[in-house]
């Protein structure tokens, strides 16, 4: 009998010419999509130009999204963005997005149907693992890998060992995908899944939507994982069907497939989480964080982790008719133009502005300490983003606390880290 395979092994196998793959094998795999942004693609473009090859492997499978420092934050950033534009023109790259049609890459690609279930996707951005939510094998690589993929449409991969993560039960009120993934990282640590791939499952995900899955897959990297995949189901189909303009495949793990580890969590006992500085693994219950009376200077709602329309809706639900605390900044960054437009139509933008917040054009901006909300020395932010490393959002003495958008909204109102109920 053939060895039962996981969804991850199946996707990798079907992108090679091999008869079988097993964890530990190093394989050369074909990529369906190779992605770069305005920080990582410039190096890839420079390297690609040294290869001496006549053209890119496939103009329809390369995606360039200027999102980190775009709209250009300064002259040097403008030069980097220009390199992407010139490359896109030269090779007639199908998926190149100017800022009026773009957004944060990992929110944008699924929204546009560019990445689909069953694909093998590489991106020169660590949060490329976000697409695992669709049943895609997606992993972050470097600029050199991207240059190689531009040329040959291939990537070398070590077939990872698999860790199955099962969440069972209905989530409590205010508990979202963000809380489950922060809880998981708190349990296994920031290198708990290093070199390994995560597979998420369990009946909890019947109670949550695609946005929650994207958030969870997005932060698989914060546990060191290579990827974080969900088996596609009717929720996936509902999301993908209106967006895809090519065929896609739903892969499923076989009965009896082998996992290096299986982790079981009871969702019903998990509360909203806050990750204290300076690692995503420092997650605690919101009640514990709230009791510490942690004053904040800034609240950020956005990013590839939590900048989708569902995130903005929940923040608006809490902020409606309220004012944020004096001497506090609330920065809301819809992740894509489509999210921005929908938020505008639904009246969410007015709610944020009426509350005393500000709404930015889509960009990664403050998440990585780029611009649009940099912290001064000693300042504190609560943020719906993904990393709270030392100096991540600004001065090396500043602090970032990670939480879901509801907690970020409530904290902006109270000027301190707070439970959503405290602000209602």
């Amino acid at each position, binding site marked *: 009998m053939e060895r039962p395979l996981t969804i991850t092994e199946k996707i990798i196998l079907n992108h090679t010419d091999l008869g079988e793959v097993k964890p530990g094998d*190093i394989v050369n795999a074909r990529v369906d999509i190779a992605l770069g942004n305005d*920080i*990582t693609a*410039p*190096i890839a473009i*420079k*390297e690609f130009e*040294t*290869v*001496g*090859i006549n053209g890119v*492997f496939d103009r329809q499978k390369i995606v360039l999204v200027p999102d*980190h*420092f775009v709209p250009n*934050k*300064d002259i*040097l*950033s403008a030069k*980097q963005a220009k390199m992407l534009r010139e490359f896109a023109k030269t090779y007639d790259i199908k998926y190149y997005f100017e800022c009026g049609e773009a957004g944060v890459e990992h929110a944008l690609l699924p929204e546009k149907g560019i990445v689909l279930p069953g694909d093998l996707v590489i*991106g*020169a*951005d*660590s949060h*490329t693992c976000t697409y695992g939510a669709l049943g895609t094998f997606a992993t*972050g*690589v*470097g*600029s*050199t*890998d991207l*240059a*190689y993929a531009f*040329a*040959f449409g291939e990537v*070398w991969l070590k077939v990872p060992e698999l860790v199955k993560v099962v969440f069972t039960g209905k989530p409590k009120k205010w508990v979202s995908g963000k809380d489950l993934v922060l809880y998981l990282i708190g349990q296994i640590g*920031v*290198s708990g899944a*290093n*070199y390994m791939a995560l597979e998420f499952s369990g009946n909890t995900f019947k109670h949550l939507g695609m946005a929650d899955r994207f958030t969870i897959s997005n932060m698989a*990297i914060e546990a*060191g994982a*290579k990827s974080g995949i969900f088996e596609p189901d009717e929720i996936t189909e509902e999301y993908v069907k209106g967006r895809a303009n090519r065929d896609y495949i739903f892969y499923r793990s076989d009965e009896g497939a082998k996992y290096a580890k299986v982790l079981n969590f009871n969702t019903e006992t998990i509360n909203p989480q806050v990750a204290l500085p300076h*690692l995503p693994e420092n997650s605690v219950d919101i009640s514990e964080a709230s009791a510490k009376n942690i004053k904040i200077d800034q609240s950020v709602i956005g990013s590839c982790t939590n900048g989708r329309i569902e995130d903005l809706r929940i923040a608006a639900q809490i902020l409606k008719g309220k004012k944020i605390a004096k001497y506090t900044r609330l920065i809301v960054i819809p992740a894509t133009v489509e999210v921005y437009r929908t938020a505008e139509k639904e009246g969410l933008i007015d709610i944020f502005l009426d509350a005393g917040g500000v709404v930015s054009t889509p960009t990664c901006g403050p998440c*990585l*300490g*780029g611009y649009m909300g940099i912290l001064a020395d000693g300042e504190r932010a609560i943020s719906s983003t993904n*990393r709270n*490393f*030392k*100096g*991540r959002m600004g001065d*090396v003495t500043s602090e970032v606390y990670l939480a879901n958008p509801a907690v970020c909204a409530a904290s902006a109102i109270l000027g301190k880290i707070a439970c959503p109920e405290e602000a209602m």
Partner: protein
Amino acid sequence: MIFKGKVFKFGDNIDTDAIIPARYLNDSSDENLKKHCMEDADPAFSSNISKGDFIVAGNNFGCGSSREHAPRAIKVSGVPVVIAKSFARIFYRNSFNIGLFILEANTDDINNGDMLEVNTDSGEIKNLTKNNVINAKPIPEFMSELVNAGGLMEYARKRVKEGGRR
């Protein structure tokens, strides 16, 4: 290859923001990367490092972003080998792709300022200050071929010369 140099020791979870902060990522030139290498972990690093010195760290070195600027900054600073208990996976692959040696070893007994002699072929790390030897995990064959070939782009150029895309 054998390298000899002084140790710059760091702790666990040295992330890519510490290795090269995002505020400098608007310029990927070697000069810029070298100037700000390790700045948020040790602001004096770029002025104190000499060609041939080693970075030695604890667990999960290079966690966080996929930015290849991080191993590049280390390489252009003249550091030939990074030794750590473990590396985050994207940093690990990026290092081999660009031709920077990475060794996994128990680094508990290596201190800041120690003199080391490191053999990247055998994985032997001689601590000349402490007069002891630590053995690193062997580098997987594929990775050592990659780094000895001069990295992935060198391999790509060879592939094109030898018959093009396929």
